Every structure is written in C-alpha cells, then in structure tokens.
C-alpha cells in the first residue's frame, strides 16, 4: 500500500507559538497565588488589573456575605467540588483559611450567594491562570 502523506494544516495560532519556557511555568503559578499577577508579570497591565479586581472583589464580597469556605474534605461530592472551586483563589483561599473566615453558621438567605461568589471567584481565577499560560507560550497575543 502506498504511503500517502496528508499535508498537515498549520495551526491557527502557529504564528504566535513558542516553546515552553520559564515564564510559562512561573506565570500560571504566580497567577494562581495572586489573581491577575500572571498577566502583570507579562506586562499585560490592564488585563491583569481587571482580572485581579474581579476575582479579589468577588472573593471579598463572598466573605462579607458570610459565604462558606470549604476546607479539604473527602465527604460529600458537592463539598469536594466546593473545595476545588475555592482553592482556585490561591492566596486568598490560604489567607482566609489561616484567619478562619467563612466557617460561621449561615444566618440569612443571601449568605448562599456568598458561598457561590467564593467558589466562582476561584473558578474564574482558574480561567485567568490558563489565559496567563496561553500568553506565556505565545498562543494568545
């Protein structure tokens, strides 16, 4: 059988692509620890500040609304998923655990919004970490 070779289509982002380098590891790590910092160290000032403001304000509002902060656990699946969401906030999550925030009893209806704010702040930070990585490897300008 003839060995037919199909010409590969060039990737849409090939013109930006770069090999993995130090910044592609440091930027996501810093971006996770300090929301938005992964963009700031790559000199994407406006994007970084907007991401930082969005994630930090959302997390702080969640705490102020008496939202629950999930600790590491192996119990109910929703508790595990809540923990995975919360841990996305990186340094904010670590500080809030250290200060024992978000452990009180829920006293009003909108406190549940606070819990969701905390989880979504972490999940949004995961997205911004992925974006910082894509910028670092050149997949995104």
């Amino acid at each position, binding site marked *: 059988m003839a060995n037919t070779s199909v010409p590969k289509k060039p990737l849409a982002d090939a013109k930006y692509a770069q090999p993995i380098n130090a910044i592609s590891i440091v930027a996501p790590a810093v971006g996770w620890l300090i929301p938005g910092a992964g963009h700031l160290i790559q000199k994407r000032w406006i994007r970084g500040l907007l991401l930082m403001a969005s994630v930090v*304000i959302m997390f702080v*509002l969640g705490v*102020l*609304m008496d939202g629950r902060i999930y600790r590491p656990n192996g119990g109910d699946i929703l508790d595990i998923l809540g923990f995975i969401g919360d841990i996305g906030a990186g340094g904010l999550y670590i500080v809030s655990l250290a200060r024992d925030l978000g452990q009180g009893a829920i006293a009003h209806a909108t406190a549940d*919004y606070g819990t*969701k704010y905390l989880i*979504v702040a972490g999940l949004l930070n995961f*997205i911004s970490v992925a974006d910082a990585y894509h910028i670092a490897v050149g997949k995104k300008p």
Partner: protein
Amino acid sequence: MSLALSHFNAAVLFAVFASVVFGITQRNNARDQLRYGLYCFVMFVGGVFVAGWLMWFLRR
C-alpha cells in the same frame, strides 16, 4: 461585618465580575474583549429577568 445584598444586586454584581473575566480570557483583542464582555453581561442579566418572570408565572 455582614453584607446583605438583595438577590438582584447579588446577581448583577456576579454578572459584572464574571463578564469581565470571560471577556478578557475568551477573546484576543481589546475590541472583541469588550464586545464579548458586554454580550456575557447582557446574557447573565437577561437570564435573571427570564428566570424571574418564569418563577412569577409558575407561582400563579
């Protein structure tokens, strides 16, 4: 200190922050980011109104 937002205010604030992050991370240039962020915000808030009216009809 405890913050008690109304359901609507909480939903709108949620929409603002989520839209900013979606806009920045899901598009490549500033113009597209702004357009997509606004689109997400409108969809979030529009969803709140649609869900609100649906619940109002279900309650009747």
